[in-house]
């Protein structure tokens, strides 16, 4: 982890991810707040078949992000064993919870029908018990749950940005379990200071380590095979949409998850790309609420977990809602996680006009992709 923070090749993500973008042994983090929640739902869709659960952490400030609610809704509808841990530390960067979060935090989760547990990080035995119960519930019922966990951040949000009342911070520092556990316990106090020293001294070792060489740093997964040869183009029978439909049927048969709005039978999608497929592969064709960011995130999570997710955006114009998933997630996972992750998700969308749908359903936005 220290190697990673210092941008060294030995870091968990080869020094490319840095503190905000980590990926190792089932742990994944990303910079945009809330963006990994639907990705967690997608991973959870896959782990449903096992005893595992997905645990997704979110700060109370991130309850202001729309994608948070898309994920809660999708997770509940898809019956995913996902434990949403909302860490309420009373602040979002610099802004107090009272100025950021209207109404009740637990009610935000209850609104989606999630069993919602309350805990805090000062009463440790009860915290352990609550978390245990929450995980057991998610696992046993294959459904999401929430834990609203009250806590406090003892250091600055980032480097030195702290405008909180010093007395308030001192109060929580004094009452922090690490402080009172070691107070009056010489053995533990000694052990903690040894750990501090070990960490400090490791920085010197890490600083002298090499960074990733430039030619291992660049490079992506994209195809660049060139050829000067030409062959006769492949013809086809039937209409274009029937060819798309046949391809999606093959993919459903091969275990892909096809996810989009109104794609299940009998409707079969606004342009009928999945018509007839849902009947034969009901588990593979997942019709969702209107949640472009959420459904693309779910498909991405499913793909990160080793399966194939294929997302349909009903009208290409609405890919704008999924831009964050594409720009800050899917297009970066492979590289920023040190090439340890692969996210072979496919996102299909019809662009262009001429069908009388007007200004917001007729654009060609591929220039932004």
């Amino acid at each position, binding site marked *: 982890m220290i190697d990673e923070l210092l941008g060294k090749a030995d870091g968990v993500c080869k020094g490319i991810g840095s503190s905000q973008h980590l990926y190792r042994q089932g742990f994944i983090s990303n910079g945009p707040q809330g963006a990994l929640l639907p990705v967690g739902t997608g991973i959870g869709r896959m782990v449903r078949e096992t005893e595992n659960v997905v645990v997704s952490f979110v700060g109370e400030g991130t309850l202001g992000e729309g994608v948070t609610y898309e994920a809660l809704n999708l997770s509940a509808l898809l019956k995913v064993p996902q434990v949403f841990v909302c860490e309420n530390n009373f602040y979002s960067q610099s802004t107090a919870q009272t100025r950021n979060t209207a109404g009740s935090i637990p009610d935000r989760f209850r609104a989606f029908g999630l069993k919602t547990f309350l805990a805090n990080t000062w009463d440790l035995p009860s915290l352990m018990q609550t978390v245990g119960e929450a995980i057991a519930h998610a696992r046993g019922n294959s459904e999401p749950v929430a834990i609203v966990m009250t806590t406090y951040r003892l250091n600055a949000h980032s480097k030195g940005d702290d405008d909180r009342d010093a007395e308030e911070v001192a109060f929580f520092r004094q009452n922090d379990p690490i402080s009172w556990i070691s107070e009056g316990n010489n053995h533990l106090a000694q052990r903690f200071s040894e750990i501090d020293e070990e960490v400090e001294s490791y920085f010197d070792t890490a600083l002298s380590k090499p960074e990733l060489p430039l030619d291992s740093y660049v490079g992506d*997964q*994209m*195809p*660049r*095979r*060139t*050829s*000067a*040869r*030409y*062959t*006769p*183009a*492949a*013809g*086809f*029978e*039937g*209409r*274009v*949409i029937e*060819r*798309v439909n*046949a*391809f999606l049927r*093959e*993919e459903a048969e091969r275990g892909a998850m096809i996810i989009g709005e109104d794609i299940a039978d009998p409707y079969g999608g606004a*342009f009928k790309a999945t018509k007839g497929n849902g009947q034969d592969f009901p588990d593979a064709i997942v019709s969702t609420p209107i949640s472009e960011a959420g459904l693309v995130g779910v498909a*991405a999570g499913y*793909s990160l977990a080793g399966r*194939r997710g294929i997302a349909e955006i009903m009208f*290409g114009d609405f890919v704008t809602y999924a831009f964050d998933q*594409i720009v800050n997630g*899917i*297009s970066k*996972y*492979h590289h920023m996680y040190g090439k340890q992750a*692969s*996210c*072979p*998700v*496919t*996102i*299909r*969308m*019809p*662009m*262009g*006009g*001429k*069908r009388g*749908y007007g200004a917001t359903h007729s*654009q*060609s*936005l*591929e*220039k932004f*992709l």
Partner: protein
Amino acid sequence: MLVVALNSLSDPAAVLRETQDLSVPSIIIENKTDYGRRAPAVNERLEIRQNARTLGHLLITPRYDKPHFSIVTYGEPARLIYDAYDEIVAETNALFDLLCMVKLSPMDLSGPARHMMKHEAILAVEDGSAPFGIGAEILSQLRGRAGSTVVSQCVAM
């Protein structure tokens, strides 16, 4: 991301299969009016070939005569231009090669460039708007290869 545009001049399922088999994050640009189309009617004067590279472009070229200029495009406009080929020739009195890009990103123009440099003029045609568009990207990359000797213009329909 790999960005691929389907067209109705060759089998869309083959493009989808090739994309999927690459196992990389990809975006497929489809088209609402192309959805209803069947394969194009055969035009005896034209030949439709596909470059053998991964997700290679289509090259529609006159069978019997030498073309004077190139039109480069992707997606639905490729079909519209193909269907109107004879009409355009009658109006302009000039034959042209039609190149239909399939892989839009990463944009790879080494093959098309070799081909288009043989002509004096290149027209990039796309749906939507021309500024900052795919056509502008194509022409700027081609200019990088050809210098400024080739006349080029980008139009949107």
